């Protein structure tokens, strides 16, 4: 489903990702770990074709992202729910309107959008908050709203970039459990985090990055050989 093949990304001569090579199967839960600045976010941006690799190939469902036509980028992005590290919740729209954006972009009818928002808010644990603005929510609630927006259009893949970065331990665990629940419903989840608590809790596949390289991959669901340089 997702195949990173010897991907290298450099910014103005600085190598952020170096020969990254791994695959993710449908329905998998993968935790990508590593300190801040090791390239976790870059990995996510490459996945949604916000960036192009300097070298190597990224293939999603058989489609090479380097060769994808500009008109096919929006449909690709709709296949990947993205939980941004900085939430990217639009401040002057209500929670409901923020979630509705994903659904409108996905072509849902207004009636379906309304029904789905209520269900999503129930699912992420902030029922009845659709008319509140982000400024009226706590950090954990904003993160839940961001998760609701990311999964609203039922994408087959969810990339969560530091979803618990600004949250307390208890809320982080709740968010992590929510992601596990989303995964149990069939969504492939890739979570990028440096949160040790969550890494310890997780029985999922763990890929560890250091200085832009994969230094460990706990488990291989892929047929490809993995770099394991512990």
């Amino acid at each position: 489903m997702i195949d990173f093949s010897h991907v290298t990304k450099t910014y103005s001569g600085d190598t952020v990702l170096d020969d990254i090579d791994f695959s993710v199967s449908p329905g998998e839960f993968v935790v990508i770990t590593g300190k801040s600045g090791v390239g976790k976010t870059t990995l996510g941006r490459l996945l949604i074709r916000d960036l192009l690799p300097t070298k190597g190939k990224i293939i999603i469902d058989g489609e090479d992202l380097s060769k994808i036509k500009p008109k096919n980028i929006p449909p690709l992005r709709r296949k990947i729910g993205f939980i941004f590290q900085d939430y990217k919740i639009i401040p002057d729209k209500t929670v409901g309107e923020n979630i509705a954006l994903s659904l409108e972009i996905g072509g849902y009818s207004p009636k379906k959008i309304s029904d789905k928002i209520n269900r999503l808010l129930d699912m992420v644990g902030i029922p009845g908050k659709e008319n509140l603005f982000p400024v009226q929510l706590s950090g954990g609630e904003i993160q839940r709203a961001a998760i609701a927006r990311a999964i609203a259009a039922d994408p087959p893949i969810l990339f969560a970039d530091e979803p618990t970065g600004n949250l307390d331990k208890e809320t982080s665990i709740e968010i992590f459990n929510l992601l596990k629940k989303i995964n149990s419903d069939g969504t492939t989840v890739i979570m990028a985090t440096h949160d040790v608590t969550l890494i310890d809790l997780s029985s999922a596949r763990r890929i560890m990055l250091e200085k832009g390289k994969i230094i460990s991959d706990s488990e291989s669901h892929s047929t490809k050989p993995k770099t394991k340089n512990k």
Partner: protein
Amino acid sequence: MNTALKNIRRTPFQALAAIFVVSITLFVVGIFTLVTLASHSILLNFETKPQIIAYLKDGHTTDQVAGLISNLTSTQGVKNAIYISKQDALELYKKSVGNDPILLGTVTDWGIVTADILPASVEITASDPKSFGTIVSILEKSDVVSETPASKKEIDFPEDVISELTKWTNAIRMAGLLLIIALTIVCVLTIMIIISMKISSRRLEIGTLKLLGARNFYIIKPYLLESVIYGLVGALFGWVLSYITLLYSTPFLAPRLGGVISFPIRPEVILLLLLSLLVFGLILSFISSFFAAARFVKRSK
């Protein structure tokens, strides 16, 4: 639509500036449309009237007149040449003076105006004012055209009134067109700047929408709608201003142009003007915002 209306409410002064510029532009367009229509009617009125009248000697024969008319109509630039007999001249005179007893001569010493005292004539309409010289030359050579005591042929023609009128109407149209072009450019640039500023201030939101998989059209749609609202509201104001101007100028224009243009102006003309201004406003605003939005969205990731 909700997003477009929200954008307008958020920045009322920018919205007012856009509507003001569109209104002024379309007011000028409306006024010049009316002026162009009026000048066209005036020109048409002059063109359909006989432009050269040659008075004939008494005692002319039908063959002489037929020969002159044939000679004239075969000349390039002559639309038609009509023979007006003494009796026709009397009828035209009566029609022009109405029932005025003095002008009809019923109360004067010299008695009733009769056909005998009026000359027969040939009235010539030219399709091209440049042919006036040729026509006058034919008439001057004709034996059937009467002469003044000073041996000058009795030919009336308004020299180059039509040509002057055409020149003036063309000049007015050209000035109007240039003004409209200048105002249209100002209008397009104003809307482009306003929409660019709005888009620029929401670039983070646009970036998020793109990352969520929104197509460019989904992103620019609210801005296009917002601009179209400016265009339509501006067109409506421009039309109202044009109409008010027309209403206030009617008492001044009616006595001067009454014979050429019928006042008050027909409602269908006014409605057609509204429709034209709305379409023009729509196109103007759509194009301006489309270029502003497309340029920004293309540049942003």
